[in-house]
């Protein structure tokens, strides 16, 4: 009887133990959420460190399109930017892209799920920061690059390896803290 009694007490304490452990876990999760380190809605992107995936985007006037082969041997690191004319943060991002273009960073744009007239209006309104431009109406290139929304940006080094990914709109802080140092590093 004693043997079973000894087993019983820890068994009875297990629900309490589980609740306490769970509680500590939840507090930690909430703390991390507060700091921005935990967000259950973010989608991972595993392309950093890998070669540019096989893809091709067709012409989207004034752009003539481009494909994987064009991103293999580059003179300078290229920023590939997925955007769309119907995307409000993309409009907000546009002046920053124009500024990067002025500083000599080549930007290649992929217009996601869009139409040519709308693209034309977007470029007319916010300027064209793109050295090369292509259209991805069916989202094939978008999925090949693993994006989950627009705008998203990737930095490609001179040998065609993806070195950096941003799943959000560019901001001056991110550009100066993350992008410019990497452009210099791989330049």
């Amino acid at each position: 009887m004693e043997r079973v009694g000894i087993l019983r007490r820890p068994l009875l304490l297990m629900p309490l133990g589980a609740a306490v452990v769970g509680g500590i876990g939840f507090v930690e999760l909430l703390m991390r959420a507060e700091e921005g380190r935990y967000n259950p809605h973010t989608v991972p992107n595993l392309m950093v460190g890998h070669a540019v995936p096989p893809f091709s985007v067709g012409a989207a006037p004034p752009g003539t399109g481009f494909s994987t082969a064009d991103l293999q041997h580059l003179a300078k690191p290229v920023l590939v930017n997925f955007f769309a004319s119907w995307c409000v943060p993309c409009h907000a991002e546009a002046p920053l892209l124009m500024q990067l273009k002025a500083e000599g960073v080549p930007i290649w744009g992929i217009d996601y799920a869009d139409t040519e007239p709308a693209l034309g209006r977007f470029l007319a309104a916010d300027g064209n920061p793109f050295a090369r431009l292509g259209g991805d109406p069916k989202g094939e290139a978008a999925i090949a690059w693993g994006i989950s929304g627009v705008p998203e940006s990737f930095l490609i080094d001179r040998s065609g390896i993806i070195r950096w990914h941003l799943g959000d709109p560019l901001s001056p802080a991110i550009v100066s803290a993350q992008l410019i140092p990497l452009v210099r590093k791989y330049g």
Partner: protein
Amino acid sequence: MRWLRILLAPSLLALLLAGPSFAVAPTLSQAEEARAVAIGSQLRCLVCQNESVEQSSATLAANIRHIIRQQVAAGWTNRQIMHWMTARYGDFIRLDPPFNRLTLLLWVMPVLAPAVGLGIALGASRRRPGPPPPLSDAEKRRLASLLE
């Protein structure tokens, strides 16, 4: 085609919740379409919470459905398609989590929980003396005589 039959069970389970596909894609045979739907039902729609790409009406989900159908028409195996998707989005896109060291507890739980429950129940019943066995004939006669 054994893989089709193996897929049939989970794909039909998935059909419980599967929705339509607004596929604007290469035309597929019925079997190929069924395979594409089965694969799509295993992939998470990334922009809407907790729906599969087959059920979701988001543009991104339509894009993924389109690509799946292209790959099925090109003859890719299910494993190849899944690998292609997880290479880009990680295990996050799989609605059925992989079976590895991290998810061991998760997959083992359907067996572990009833085992623990039965163990506790049996342990508790052993602690208690069982109900008295039924009376033997001699005891019954003795009882009858006592009751008269």
